[in-house]
């Protein structure tokens, strides 16, 4: 024991770090801040450590070459002992990291912790969010599969919409005129050197400021932040009611971080690693690319924006959101901290959470995507063709053969791009059906050139049968009169 102490003293006499570390460890935190609500920042930090370790381990095997990356991932999954598990840890760690960073941000926002004097801590936190998302996106590219390839195409298509500089930005992003070897190499450099470097720098500053300025006190309704008096009040509070971070507060951080690490390990073990999906061969087009979980909401936004809104929303929207986040502590640096006195803050969080959750949920089902194989893979349910005339059944064949089923569902099966047609005959009369099929419109292609008159007649005959039992199809009342000469002219008198 004495030997260890002696060795410790020998090192400390030269390093001179002991006093600093003791000071950091024992810095006082307000008693009420040593709470389960204050554990997310440290958990994000611990996941970042996990990502560094697992990332380095993956780099032992991974080949950052467009021709070999996918194969090296297969090797990791199947030929390297527990390679799949390390990939799982890294992939799930990324999802958990984004989630914990978001939760941390919500907690800081609701507890008013961004107010004076911690404005810069928040601003650097916003940069940390951006680089974390940057890591998530570039990491998805390194899993160089079909989704990564077409995801890069989507990224390039968005970037190309920047006025004037767009094409140049695309070439910079891709490292050349197409998605190829140079693209993967530069995303590897970004994911492994550039963004982690930024992340480490921002995390260091962020932590330094937390230590220097002290952890946010528990917000009390009515305890208002004023720049003139806050620092004095905070120091009085920590002096009067402070506890040392180690050991009185840190145990909650440690327990939560361990719980999160265990959860990541469980997910990696139970669900396994993410992909890779099909090989990144652009000539294999039987694919429906989808982004990773935390970008699904964006995928939904991109399909819902009207075409004319898309470019402005894509280019201006992020700028507004980031500016609002950066300016938040500057504009609202004083005042109430407690969320009980900040209804707008609570509403903003609720609105954002509901919007993101809804969009993510929608993107998981992607109702806007045609079901590309519905016409050949999903038959029309039996009840729609039983007891139908030959012409109507011929129409059902046209419905399948012309890929109507890819966008329109019958009996909850098929595409949801267009409206379900189970009861279309109630909504549209025969003439309206013919017009819609031939001319299209309302986001439907016109089929006039692709259907013969006989096919159109059969298809419309089939569509006219699509109404609930007991509910009669829509009729144009005037049409019967117009088409029936007997009704229009008085019957001839019998001799």
């Amino acid at each position, binding site marked *: 024991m004495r030997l260890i102490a002696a060795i410790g003293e020998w090192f400390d006499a030269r390093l001179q770090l002991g006093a600093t570390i003791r000071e950091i460890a024992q810095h006082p935190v307000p008693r009420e801040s040593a709470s389960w609500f204050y554990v997310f920042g440290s958990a994000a930090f611990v996941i970042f450590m996990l990502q560094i370790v697992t990332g380095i381990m993956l780099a032992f095997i991974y080949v950052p070459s*467009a021709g070999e990356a996918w194969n090296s991932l297969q090797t990791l999954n199947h030929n390297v002992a527990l390679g799949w598990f390390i990939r799982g840890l890294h992939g799930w760690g990324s999802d958990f990291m984004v989630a914990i960073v978001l939760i941390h941000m919500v907690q800081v926002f609701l507890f008013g912790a961004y107010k004076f004097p911690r404005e810069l801590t928040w601003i650097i936190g916003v940069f940390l969010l951006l680089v974390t998302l940057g890591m998530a996106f570039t990491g998805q590219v390194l899993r160089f599969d079909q989704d990564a390839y077409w995801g890069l*195409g989507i990224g390039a*298509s968005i970037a190309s919409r920047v006025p004037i500089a*767009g094409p140049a930005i695309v*070439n910079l992003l891709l490292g050349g005129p197409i998605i190829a070897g140079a693209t993967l190499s530069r995303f590897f450099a970004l994911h492994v050197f550039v963004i982690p470097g930024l992340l480490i720098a921002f995390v260091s500053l962020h932590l330094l400021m937390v230590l220097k300025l002290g952890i946010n006190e528990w917000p009390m309704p009515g305890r208002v932040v004023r720049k003139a008096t806050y620092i004095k009040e905070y120091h009085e509070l920590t002096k009067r009611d402070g506890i040392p971070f180690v050991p009185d507060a840190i145990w909650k951080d440690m327990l939560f971080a361990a719980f999160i690490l265990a959860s990541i390990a469980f997910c990696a073990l139970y669900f396994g690693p993410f992909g890779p999906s099909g090989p990144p061969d652009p000539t294999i087009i039987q694919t429906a690319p989808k982004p990773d979980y935390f970008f699904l909401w964006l995928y939904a936004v991109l399909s819902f924006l009207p075409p004319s809104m898309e470019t402005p929303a894509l280019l201006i929207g992020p700028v507004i959101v980031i500016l609002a986040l950066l300016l938040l502590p500057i504009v609202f640096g004083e005042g109430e901290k407690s969320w009980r006195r900040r209804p707008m803050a609570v509403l903003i969080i609720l609105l954002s959470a509901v919007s993101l959750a809804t969009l993510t949920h929608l993107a998981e089902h992607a109702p806007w995507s045609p079901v590309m194989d519905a016409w050949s893979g999903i038959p029309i349910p039996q009840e729609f063709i039983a007891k139908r005339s030959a012409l109507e059944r011929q129409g059902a064949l046209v419905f399948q053969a012309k*890929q109507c089923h890819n966008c329109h569902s019958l009996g909850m099966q098929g595409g949801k791009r267009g409206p379900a047609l189970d009861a279309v005959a109630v909504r549209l009369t025969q003439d309206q059906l013919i017009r819609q099929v031939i001319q*299209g419109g309302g986001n439907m292609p*016109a089929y006039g050139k692709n259907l013969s008159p006989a096919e159109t007649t059969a298809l419309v005959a089939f569509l006219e049968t699509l109404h609930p039992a007991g509910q009669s199809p829509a009729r144009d009342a005037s049409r019967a009169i117009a088409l029936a000469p007997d009704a229009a002219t008085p019957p001839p008198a019998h001799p």
Partner: protein
Amino acid sequence: MTLPGGVSRRDLFMKLGIFVNVVVGAILAVPIVRYLLSPVVRERKGADEAWIPLGNLEQFPSGETRFATYKNPIVNPWDGATADIACWVRNVDGKSFQVFAINCAHLGCPVRWFPQSNLFMCPCHGGAYYQDGSRASGPPERGLFEYSYKIESGKLLIKAGEMPTPGDASNIVREIRPCV
């Protein structure tokens, strides 16, 4: 020691040190920035794009639209499968052709041809195009990207080499059709 004008010797050397580093930094920045911008400032178009054969004309029967692939004109050995690009070839009437990029004009996903309904459909956000490449429905703001083509000694050639994106219509022969 203080020089005339009140500048001390130490101050002067300090400033000299900063000045020398700024000059060297600025000189070094030129090749570094040039290196970083190399994908942008290389002699574009002429170098990137080339006439590439898609195959014999017999592969593309009159009145039909067929899948074709080509190797990008500039490749690195480590590009792997990404050097192979797909496109759709439409033989309009046996004499004239249309060659469409595989990338949807919305966000670049691969469009698929359905000969039964004569439509191109995109799996991502549901863009659809008619057989002549014009926009039929969905989020795209315009028709499919189209390559220039020519026919030489019984082969169909296209001018390609750059991924078409909605913001860069330079390799498009058709005028941009506004969304209606």
